[in-house]
C-alpha cells in the first residue's frame, strides 16, 4: 500500500493526474516521489506536496484535505484509491477500472467520461458527475458512481451507460441529455430532471417537479427495478419495489427531443 499524506492544502489547485495505481504499481518510492504534479503552470515533484510511504502497489491512500487536488485517479484501470479527506475536481475522470473511495466530500466532474470502475464519495459532491466534458458526444459509459451526500447540477449529463446513485438531494438538470444508463435519486431532485433525455432510466424516490414534456405512461412495479434493487442491496442501499410499500409512476420523455427515456417516481402507499 502507498500512503500519500498532503503536507498542506495547496493554495492554487494541484493537478495530480499522476496519482493513479497504474503509475505507482511498479514504481519505487523514489520514483513515486518524483512523479510530476502541476501547481498552476509550474511542474513540481509529488513529494513537494505529499509525504510518500510505500512503493510498488496499486492500493493508494491519500490523507489530508485534498479539496484542491484535482484529477486523482484520472484514467486509472486497476487498483484502488482511498481518500481520507476531501477530493478535488475531476476525481476518477476517464477511469477504466478499479475503485475510488472518498470519506469526505468531492467536487465537480467526478467520473466524467468514465468507462468502468467504481467511485464512492461519502460526503457531498458538486455537479456534472459522470457527465460529458463540454462538446463531447457522451459522458460515462459504464461503472458505478455512488454519492452519500448531496449533488449539484447536471449529474449524468449525456451519460451513455452506467449507474449513478445519489443518496442526498440533487439539484437541477439531473440526467440532462441522457443517452442511457441509470440514475437513482434517493431523495429526489430540484428542477428539470431528465431535460432533453433520449434514453436511460431515472428513478426518484421522492416526488419531483416534472417538465411538461414528460407524460405519465403507467403505474406499476417494473421487474427491472426489482433487479436493480438487488444490485443496490449489495451496496447496502435499499430501493423500494414491493406492492406492499407503494408503486412507481412511470413517465416517458423528454418529448421535446423526442426522447424515449423513462422516469420512475416512487409513490409510497398511504401510511
Amino acid at each position, binding site marked *: 500500500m502507498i500512503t500519500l499524506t498532503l503536507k498542506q492544502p495547496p493554495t492554487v489547485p494541484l493537478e495530480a493526474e499522476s496519482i493513479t495505481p497504474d503509475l505507482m504499481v511498479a514504481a519505487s518510492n523514489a520514483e513515486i516521489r518524483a512523479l510530476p504534479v502541476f501547481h498552476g503552470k509550474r511542474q513540481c515533484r509529488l513529494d513537494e506536496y505529499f509525504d510518500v510511504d510505500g512503493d510498488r502497489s496499486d492500493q493508494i491512500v491519500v490523507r489530508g484535505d485534498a479539496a484542491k487536488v484535482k484529477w486523482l485517479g484520472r484514467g486509472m484501470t486497476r487498483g484502488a484509491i482511498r481518500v481520507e479527506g476531501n477530493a478535488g475536481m475531476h476525481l476518477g475522470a476517464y477511469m477504466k477500472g478499479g475503485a475510488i473511495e472518498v470519506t469526505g466530500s468531492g467536487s465537480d466532474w467526478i467520473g466524467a467520461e468514465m468507462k468502468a470502475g467504481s467511485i464512492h464519495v461519502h460526503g457531498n459532491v458538486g455537479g456534472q458527475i459522470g457527465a460529458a*466534458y*463540454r*462538446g*463531447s*458526444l457522451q459522458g460515462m459509459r459504464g461503472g458505478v458512481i455512488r454519492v452519500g451526500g448531496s449533488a449539484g447540477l447536471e449529474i449524468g449529463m449525456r451519460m451513455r451507460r452506467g449507474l449513478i446513485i445519489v443518496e442526498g438531494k440533487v439539484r437541477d438538470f439531473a440526467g440532462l441529455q441522457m443517452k442511457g444508463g441509470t440514475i437513482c435519486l434517493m431523495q429526489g431532485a430540484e428542477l428539470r430532471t431528465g431535460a432533453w433525455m433520449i434514453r436511460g432510466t431515472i428513478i426518484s424516490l421522492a416526488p419531483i417537479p416534472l417538465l411538461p414534456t414528460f407524460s405519465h405512461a403507467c403505474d406499476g412495479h417494473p421487474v427491472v427495478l426489482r433487479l436493480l434493487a438487488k444490485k443496490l442491496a449489495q451496496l447496502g442501499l435499499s430501493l423500494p419495489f414491493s406492492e406492499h410499500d407503494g408503486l412507481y409512476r412511470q413517465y416517458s420523455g423528454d418529448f421535446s427531443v423526442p426522447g424515449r427515456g423513462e422516469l420512475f417516481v416512487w409513490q409510497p402507499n398511504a401510511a
Partner: protein
Amino acid sequence: MLRITGGRVYDPAHGLNGVVRDVCIDGGKIVEQVTGGRVIDAAGMIVFPGGVDVHTHVAGGALNFARAMTPENQRSAVPFLHKEKLRAGIGGPTPTTFATGYLYAGMGYTTVNEAAVPVLSAKHTHEELRDTPIVDKSMCILMANNEIMLDLLEAGEYERAKHVVGWMINAAKSYGVKAVNPGGVTAWKWGKNASKMNEVVTGYNSLTPAMIVGGLARICDDLGLPHPMHLHCNNLGAPGNIETTLETMKAVDGARCHMAHLQFHAYGGDEWETMRSESVTLANYFNTHPNFTADAGAVLFGNAVTITADGPWQHLLYQLTGRKWGNLDVENETGCGIVPYTYKGSNLVNAIQWAVGLELLLLIDDPWRIYLTTDHPNGACFWRYPEIIHMLMNADFRREQVKKLPAKAIQRTVIADLDREYSLFEIAIIISAGPARALGMKNKGHLGVGADADVTIYNQNPDGEMMFRYPRYVLKGGEVVVEEGDLKNSVEGRQFLVEPSFDPAIEEFLRPLFQQHYTMSFENYPVEMERVEHPEVMECSLE
C-alpha cells in the same frame, strides 16, 4: 546563401523529372549559382517545390466559431507547446493559427489559399493570417451572394457590378473571388436554397444562379485577376447533383473557372439510397473543356468539421445527422454553416464520396488542372494529404482499401476498375506546380531561377504516406524551417493581394447603400493596408 546538392529534382514547370542537380538559393530566391553558404547534401533524396494548397479553410470568423463549437476536438488534439522559436497552439481539425502554419510547413507546404472570406469580416481573417506563420497566404472573398452585386446583375448593370467586385477585392485586401452556392446563400436568408440553375432566386424577380455564375466568371476575367472565379457549385452534396454541375459549367460559358472540391458535385442517383458516382461523366466533360481547373475535395474516413458558406446545405446536414450545428449570417453578403461530421467506411454515402474523390484524381487526364485538396476541414484534415498521395501512387494499396468498402458502394463507383498510378512528377504537379499556376502565382510551384525559394526535400520511401508526411527539410523563402524532420525555425509569411482597377465613382454608388443596409459604416468597411502583414501586390493582367 544555400545550395541543395545531389537531390533528384522534380520541377514539372521546367520539365525536370527526377534530374539530379543542384538547387541554389540566395536572398530568398532560386538563383543560377551560389558560392559559399550552407550546403544541404540531398543525395538520394527527392526535391520538390514547396506545396501549394489552393483550397482550404484556416482563418477567420467561421473557423473561429468552429473552434469554439468543438471544445472536444481541442481536448483530443495534438498540443503545440511553445518553444524558443515556436508559439503554442492546438492541432485537431480546426487548428489554432500558429499550429496551422506549423502543420502545413511540417508537411512541406509553403503557400496556402484561404478559400472563403466574407468582406465584412475580412479584418478577422487578416488578423488570423498574420498569426499563421511560415506559409505565404492569399484569400478569396465571397461575392456570389453579395446582394449589392446581385441587384446589379439582375438589373443588367454589368459594368457597375464589375466595378463593385473590383472595389470589394481592393477593400478586403484580397487575392480573388469565391462563389459559394450562387443565389443559395442569399435565399437561405429566407429559409430557402437555390438548387436549380435556371430558377429565380428567392427574393429576386429574374435573377437565376446561372446568371450569377456567368456574370461573376466574366467579371473575374474582365478584371484580369490572376486566379479565376473560384466556384463552389449549387446543390453541393446532393444525390443527382451532376446535372447541376454540368449546367453550371455550361453557364460559365467559356470563361476561366476554378471549381472547388469537385468531389462533392459528382453524384448521380436521385436520393440517398440510389446515390452513385458520376465521376466518369464529370471527368469527361472536364477533360474536354480546358477553361476549367478544379481541386479534388477528397474525403477520408474519420472526423471532420464541415465549415462552409453553404448555409442551407449545412442545415440539411444537421437534420440528417443530429450533430451540433452553427449557423452564422453575414448581413447582405453571405453566411456560414458549421456541423462536425464523421465519415465512416461502413456508411454507403461516405464510401461513395471516398471513391469519387480518388476517381476524379484518376480520371481527369491532365494533372495540371486537378489538384489535391480535401476542402479542409470539410472532407478530411489537410495533414492527411499524404494518405491520398499514397493511394494515388500505389494502385495495389488503393485496391486493398477499396475492398473494405460496402459491396453496394463498389457497385455504385468505378474506383475498383482504375489502375492508374501517379508518378512523383505528377504528384509534384497536383500538390505544387498546378495549384501555383491556377492561382497565377508566377514565383511559386517551381524551382526555376527567380522562383521563391520554397523547397521541400523528402527521403525516398515506397510508402508515399510516410514520405510526404515527414519531409526531411523544408525551406521557406530560403530559410530552413524543418530540419531532419523537425520544425526548428519559424519565419513570417507574406500575403498576396491584387488591386484590380475599378471606377472610383463606384464609391458614390456604394455609400448610400451602406447607409441604408449595413450596420457597419462605409468608412469602417475597407481593410487598412496596415492590418495586412507583409503584403505583396500581384498584377492583374488585362489583355
